[in-house]
């Protein structure tokens, strides 16, 4: 049967629904039923099931697991549980104050209705190259906590993604949360995204974090979304900034480097040429804003 007669039915295939109360129980279900899918907000998973792009036989609800829903300020880092609602992250005073970059990434996801449902864990595990939350976590060098039958392991956010929809997670593993280091006081950050409309998945997005000593860049992170199979850090651009005194010229040269070092594709949201062209201006804006912010915060 051709997909056209399946992908638009809105009628999902039958599945068994599980609602564990602990991470351990959830992992056990995943282990027992290869191909089972964790369900958080369902804003990515359910449309895929209704479109019949995914036909899991087992679905495991994570929202009734208390340990996945905590936000905790741990001093030099903030811990965010995988099943915390995006709207809660957006409203959290702690996150707004201590992780303004992540806060603005999360605010740009969908609409209030979507953020009322969606979670950060879902955003990351869905592994879309356009995931805004994922971009912020990569730029902030967050750690991803993973639970599996063998216990816990941790992976750097930037190494978590392996391609569109692909991650390092095993079928029987779960993401439990993220440890997000709080940037030092002298760090300025900026996130920008462009879509076809305000309520669109990004055509292209960029997150920049610059740790400044006056106008000198101590450390730089430049991360782009929707220009590669995963969110990517641009080492070349970062290298060009690190240790240098920022000038408008350097910002422009770096932006040019950004534009040259990405290899985007054309899809329905935008052309490859567009992405390359827009990345330049967006990089100028993001670097400049991060620079100003980093300088004044000192």
């Amino acid at each position: 049967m051709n997909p056209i007669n399946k992908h638009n039915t809105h009628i999902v295939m039958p599945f068994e629904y599980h609602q564990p109360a602990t991470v351990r129980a959830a992992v056990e279900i995943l282990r027992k039923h290869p191909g089972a899918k964790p369900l958080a907000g369902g804003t990515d998973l359910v449309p895929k099931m209704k479109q019949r792009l995914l036909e899991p036989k087992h679905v495991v609800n994570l929202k009734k697991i208390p340990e996945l829903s905590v936000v905790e300020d741990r001093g030099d880092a903030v811990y965010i549980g995988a099943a915390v609602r995006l709207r809660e992250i957006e409203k959290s005073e702690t996150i707004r104050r201590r992780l303004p970059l992540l806060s603005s990434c999360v605010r740009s996801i969908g609409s209030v209705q979507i953020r009322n449902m969606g979670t950060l864990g879902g955003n990351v595990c869905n592994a879309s190259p356009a995931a805004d939350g994922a971009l912020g976590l990569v730029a902030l060098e967050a750690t991803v906590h993973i639970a599996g039958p063998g216990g816990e392991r941790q992976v750097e956010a930037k190494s978590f993604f392996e391609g569109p929809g692909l991650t390092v997670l095993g079928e029987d593993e779960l993401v439990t949360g993220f440890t997000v280091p709080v940037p030092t006081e002298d760090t300025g950050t900026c996130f920008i995204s462009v879509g076809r409309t305000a309520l669109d998945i990004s055509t292209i997005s960029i997150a920049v974090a610059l740790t400044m000593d006056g106008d000198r860049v101590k450390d730089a992170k430049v991360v782009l979304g929707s220009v590669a199979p995963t969110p990517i850090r641009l080492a070349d651009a970062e290298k060009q900034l690190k240790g240098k005194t920022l000038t408008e010229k350097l910002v422009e040269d770096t932006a040019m480097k950004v534009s040259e070092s990405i290899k985007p594709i054309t899809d329905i949201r935008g052309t490859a040429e567009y992405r390359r062209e827009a990345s330049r201006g967006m990089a100028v804006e993001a670097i400049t804003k991060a620079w100003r912010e980093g300088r004044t915060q000192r």
Partner: protein
Amino acid sequence: MSSKPAFKVLGRDTQRQDGVAKVTGREKFASDLSLPNMLHARVLKSPYAHAKVKRIDVSAISDPTVVTLTPDEVPDARFCPRLMSTPEATYKDWTVLTSKPRYVGETIAAVAAESEEAAQRALESLVVEYEEFTAVFDALGSMEPGVEPIHDYIELDEETLKVESNIACHLEIEEGDTEEGFRQADHVVERTYRTNRRYHTQLETKSVLVRPEPNGGVTVWSTTQTLHNTRILLHEIFGIPMGKIRVMKVPIGGSFGSSIQVNPVVPIAVALALKARRPVKLSYTREEDLHDHCSYQMIFKLKLGADREGKLTAGHLDAWLDIGAHQIQAYPLLGCVVGWWVSLYKLPAKSYVGKAVYTNKVPSCAFRGYGNPQITWAVETLMDELAEKVGVDPLDFRFMNYIGEGDLFWGQGPSVKSVIHSCGVEEILTKGAEMSDWYNRPRAETQTGRHRRGWGMGRGYHTSSAGAPVPGTVIDFGGAMLKLNEDGTFDYVSALMDHGGGTLDANAKIIAEELEIPHHKVNIVRADTGTTVYDVCTHASRGIYSGGGAALKVAAQVKQKIREQAGNLLDAYPNALKFRYDQQREQAVVYAEGIEGREITYKELAYTMRNKNLGTIAAVDSYRQPSCPPHFTGYFIEVDVDTWTGKVRPLRVIAGADIGTVINPKLAKGQIHGGLAQGWSMTVNEDTPYDPTSGDLWNRGFISDYKVPTSMDLPSLEAFTVFFADTYEPTGPFGAKGIGEGALNPVAGAVANAIQNALGVRFYELPITKDRILEALKRKEVEA
């Protein structure tokens, strides 16, 4: 001009009668309905853009209660789902199901089962064998020699026509000596334009519920803009006597023209219900709906000439309409495209060659404006360019050439001509220029920096209905029934549909105004084909002008009967009686002025008549309007273009509209806000491109990749000014005209001109996306 009478009901904001049901979610649309013992249907769609079905095997369906329907089980009558033209202008190329699918998503077979899920599972066990043909996705490419024919034969007025070069139909017109006109021109500009194919994004997807009746007939609840044409078409396809086909009025969940034709789901569900002998419901998913209809993509080669002073001398238009796989109303559209064009500006000589071309894509149908937004975008863009050449301000150029009061007008095509008797163009343009400080707007090409601002203007109109003094090929008349109830209220019964804009309330207000009562005393009845007289369709911005015209006609007849009956009972001369509303008694009173005791309320009148067996006061009549007056609109729009991201934002919008008497100011403004939103999105955003490898829509029907603007993409309410011109249409009910389509038509031209004003770059293809803007800026940079 202001010879307007003082109105008591019109011109005030009133609460809609369906308002509570709609805001509380209790309104039931076709997709909400269900009946006992009902089956649920699903349709099998072609995965190929062009193929022949060689075999359909239903034997693998294990569920014995499933009912299947294949192409050889439906009447093989060819039909046109859109019945608004006379037979000699109605091209027929549709069948209920097809064994020659002509686009990805075309319906081949259908199944009905106890649940939607069971129907879907049954559908998935159908085995179909196809023979695939090459497909074509571009109108110009489709006419090339050697291209696979999409239709071999079609029908016109009982005759069989052979289709040549995939041209569905064509129309050529010449008035005056165009060659000579261009010779007289000092400046000539010719450009080629290409529009987008937009999806209507109406809230409700196409749905239908059909109940087969014991007498062999059917009762139909469907998403439609036309009850009576639905009945006529079902009669033509299935041969069921009309009296046994009952099409019920169900609120429509938005339309924008997408249910102007009888939706393909309707005959399919009827065929299934007749076979199953059980009620059948078929409700499209959003993905199916995206594979059901879209706007017409058009390619224009437009040429205009003007003399030294700026008077237009001649124009020529070549138009290719990409109609997709079937004709819904391609021929009348060819007439409208030329009509919209030549009725904007005075062209002493003009010629036109229009061709409607088949492609292997979703069939196109009317979309708010019926081709007018498309051609007006091209004309308004070219008018700006030509003005620049002549050396006059584009606004002054329009003042010099527009068609207005006293001029002949044929918006609805060459067979629908009438003379304009109300015109607010001057007022709209003058006020708009003042409010936008038009003459001090930025000059193109003078700005540098990341953000550039520009002002653009565009003007246009749409006809209110397709009326005219003499008959043409377009059918346009309606009717209404009105009766006085025993409590002094009235029942207003009509086949007219309210698309959500408040049309029926507006007509109830027209009746209330005539009968001197508040609007809530006129009850809007949900009727059906058996209880209403014919109305062609609620389209062409005719709901108020034609529908309200019919309402006023019967209201006047009822008023006359009230005079006569009250005259008898009061022993007074009917023509001397007066009417007033008594707030305390909450009753209209008929009285002989100055004579004590000679008065009677509507309620007393109706009750007395009942008690004395004198009958019911009622009137039913049809109404053909004598004209189709244009309602004029004009937009002045300021935009910001981000040259780094290519994003365009609306900063300020000033919109003027000449709609004659304004019946409901808030709802009329709402039409303009909606028109701006759709026009904005048409200009910078919407399109349904195809994936040439799969032949399917690139977004495969997923709405997540068909974006429409939300409030965050649109101007803030403070930055959006709407004003109405002070006009009165002498042929309209209490001076009223339409608004629905005129609200949209000039928007794309205004936005495109604003982008040009900001960037100094013109775009000849819609939508002007962020991608196209950056591409054009880059090209400009390279060239410079």
